[in-house]
C-alpha cells in the first residue's frame, strides 16, 4: 500500500475510542440529516407525484369552502375536458383522534378513472360500486389497523356531524411507491344522501373537482376557461394544476418545513464542530511527528494531506454507515408515525446530499489543523510534546 495511505489508515485507528466516538457522532448526524431531508421530501411527495394533465378546481376563496355539485356538468362541457370527478375531505375520527388517516368521499366510478395510480382489483371495484356504504382502504392503512374486506368500521364525523358506518370492500395498492396508500375512500352518494337527512345545508356540495384534460398543451386554456364559466357566480372557482394545488397546500406548512430543513443543517454544523475539534486535537498531538516528516524532507503539503486524508476517511466511514442506516430508520419512522408519513423513501438525491455533507465535514474539519501543521516551523514542532 502507498505509504501515505498506510499512515492515514493507521492514524485513524490510533485512538480507537476517540475515533469511535467521532464516528458515532458522524453516523447520527448523517442519519438525522438524511431522515429529516426525507421527511421534507415526503411532504412534497404530492407535488412530485402530481399528474401534469390533471387540474383541480376549488372555491376561489378557500379550498375549505365547498362548490356546488351542479358545477360538474358545466365543467365537463368546457372544451378540452376529458373527464371530471369530485372529492370531499371527510376528516372523521376512527375510535380516537390520534388515529389520524385521510378519508375522502369520492364519486367512485369517475374518481378511479381520473386517478389511475390507485390500483383496485376488479372484484373490489365491483363490490365498491355495488355497496352504497362501501369503502376501500390503502394497503398501508389496512396493515396498520388490520382492516379487511367485510369489516364494518365507524368514523365519527367532524366536518360532517354524526357517526358514519362503512363496509370495507377491499384494499387498494399504489402504482408506484409514492402513491399514498394510507387513505380511505368511500362513496360520495352515501355521504350526500345522509346529509340530505342530517344536515341539508351541506348536501349537494363537493370539495374539489378533479379535471382530466385531453391535451397537455391545453392545460392553461382549459384552466382559464373553467374559471371563466363561473366568474361573477356565488361560488367563483380557482382552477390550477394538481402540482400548483399541492404546492399551495404544502405552503401552509412551509414554516415547519423550513424549521426541519434548518435543523437538518444545524445537525451537520454541530458534527462539523465536533469533527474539527477532534482533528485539531489530533494534529496538535502529532506536531512533533509532522515536524520530523518535514525535517527529513517531506513537504508541508504532504503533512497537510495526511491530516486531510484522515479527516475525510473518518467522515466517509461515518457517512457511509449513516447513509446505510437511513432507509431502515426512515421505514421504521414511517411505521411509527402511522399515517402521517405514508411513505418515507430515501431518494438518490438525499443519499447524494448525505455523501456530500460527510465529505464537506471531513474537508472543512481538516482545514485549520492542516494549515497549522503545514505552517509550523520545524524547530518549533520538534519541541512540541508528543
Amino acid at each position, binding site marked *: 500500500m502507498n505509504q501515505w495511505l498506510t499512515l492515514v489508515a493507521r492514524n485513524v485507528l490510533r485512538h480507537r475510542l476517540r475515533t469511535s466516538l467521532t464516528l458515532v457522532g458522524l453516523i447520527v448526524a448523517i442519519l438525522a440529516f438524511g431522515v429529516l431531508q426525507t421527511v421534507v421530501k415526503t411532504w412534497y411527495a404530492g407535488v412530485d407525484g402530481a399528474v401534469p394533465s390533471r387540474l383541480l378546481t376549488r372555491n376561489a376563496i378557500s379550498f375549505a369552502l365547498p362548490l356546488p355539485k351542479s358545477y360538474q356538468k358545466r365543467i365537463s362541457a368546457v372544451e378540452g375536458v376529458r373527464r371530471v370527478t369530485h372529492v370531499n375531505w371527510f376528516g372523521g375520527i376512527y375510535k380516537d383522534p390520534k388515529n389520524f388517516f385521510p378519508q375522502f368521499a369520492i364519486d367512485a366510478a369517475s374518481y378511479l378513472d381520473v386517478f389511475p395510480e390507485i390500483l383496485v382489483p376488479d372484484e373490489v371495484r365491483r363490490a365498491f360500486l355495488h355497496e352504497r356504504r362501501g369503502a376501500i382502504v390503502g394497503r398501508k392503512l389496512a396493515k396498520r389497523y388490520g382492516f379487511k374486506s367485510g369489516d364494518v368500521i365507524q368514523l365519527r364525523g367532524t366536518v360532517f356531524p354524526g357517526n358514519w358506518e362503512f363496509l370495507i370492500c377491499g384494499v387498494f395498492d399504489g402504482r408506484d411507491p409514492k402513491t399514498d396508500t394510507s387513505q380511505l375512500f368511500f362513496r360520495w352518494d352515501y355521504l350526500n344522501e345522509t346529509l340530505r337527512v342530517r344536515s341539508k345545508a351541506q348536501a349537494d356540495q363537493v370539495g374539489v373537482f378533479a379535471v382530466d384534460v385531453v391535451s397537455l398543451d391545453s392545460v392553461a386554456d382549459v384552466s382559464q376557461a373553467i374559471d371563466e364559466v363561473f366568474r361573477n357566480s356565488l361560488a367563483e372557482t380557482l382552477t390550477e394544476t394538481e402540482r400548483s394545488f399541492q404546492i399551495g397546500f404544502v405552503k401552509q406548512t412551509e414554516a415547519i418545513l423550513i424549521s426541519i430543513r434548518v435543523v437538518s443543517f444545524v445537525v451537520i454544523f454541530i458534527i462539523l464542530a465536533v469533527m474539527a475539534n477532534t482533528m485539531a486535537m489530533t494534529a496538535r498531538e502529532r506536531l512533533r511527528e509532522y515536524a520530523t516528516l518535514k525535517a527529513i*524532507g517531506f513537504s508541508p503539503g504532504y503533512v497537510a494531506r495526511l491530516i486531510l486524508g484522515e479527516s475525510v476517511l473518518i467522515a466517509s466511514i461515518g457517512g457511509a454507515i449513516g447513509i446505510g442506516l437511513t432507509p431502515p430508520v426512515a421505514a421504521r419512522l414511517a411505521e411509527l408515525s402511522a399515517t402521517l408519513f405514508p411513505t418515507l423513501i430515501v431518494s438518490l438525491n438525499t443519499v447524494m446530499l448525505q455523501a456530500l455533507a460527510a465529505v464537506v465535514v471531513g474537508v472543512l474539519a481538516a482545514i485549520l489543523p492542516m494549515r497549522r501543521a503545514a505552517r509550523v516551523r520545524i524547530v518549533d514542532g520538534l519541541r512540541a510534546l508528543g
Partner: protein
Amino acid sequence: MTVLRISDRPAGEDVLIALSDVSKSYRRGAQIVPVLSGLTFDIRRKEFLALMGPSGSGKSTMLNLIAGIDSPDQGSIKVGGEDITLLPEAELADWRAANVGFIFQFYNLMPVLTALENVELPLTLTSLGRRDRRDRAQLALSLVGLSDRVKHLPSELSGGQQQRVAIARAIVTDPTVLVADEPTGDLDRQSAKEVLEIMQRLNRDMGKTIVMVTHDHRAAAHAKRIMSLEKGDLSYLVEQRLE
C-alpha cells in the same frame, strides 16, 4: 588531546560545512534574545564532531542551522560549497532529504509504522521502486543490528532499539551529514554505548560526517573533535584523535 583556538580553522577542499559570521536570535515576548552572534567555523569532511555547552548556549540552534531546519538572521552556511541559506523552502526540503540524516533525542519514529516502514519512509521521497526501498531499509536495519526486529512497532522496542531504528532511518538515503541532537539523552548507559559505537562505526567505516550535540562527556568522548559553546560563542574546541 589538543586544545585549539577557534581561529585555527581547517582549510582547503577538506571542508564540508562552513559557517561564516552566523548570527541567530529568538523573540521571547517583546524581548529579542541573541543565541549565536557572528559565529564562524568549519567542519571537515568525515569528521565526527561533538558540540557541547550548557543549556541555552546555542548548540542545538547551531545544529538546526547546519541541518537546514532553521535559518540564520545573518551569515552564510555552506555545505559542500552550496549556501543553504539561499535555498527556498521547497528546495531546502529536497536538499535535506538528499544530504542530511537526523537522529533525535526521543527517536521521533512514526508510532504507527513498523521498524522497516520507518526506515523506508525517507526513501519514498526518492525514485526507488518498492522492492529496492525494502532491500535498502533491510540493509540499514542490519547495519544497526536489528534485522530481527523489522516488523516491530516502535512501542514494541526498547529505547536503545528505537534509537538504532532512527539511526537506520538517518543513513538509509546515504546522506553526507548526520546530525544528532542528544542521541543518548534518553538512553541507559549500555544502550547509549551501543548507539555511540554504531555512530563511530558509521563515521569510521562509511565515512559519514557526524555533528552531535550532547551534554554527556562520555558521549562526547566518542567523537573525533569536541567543540564547546558558551553563550553563543565558540570559546574553544577540543580535538581528540581516537585512532
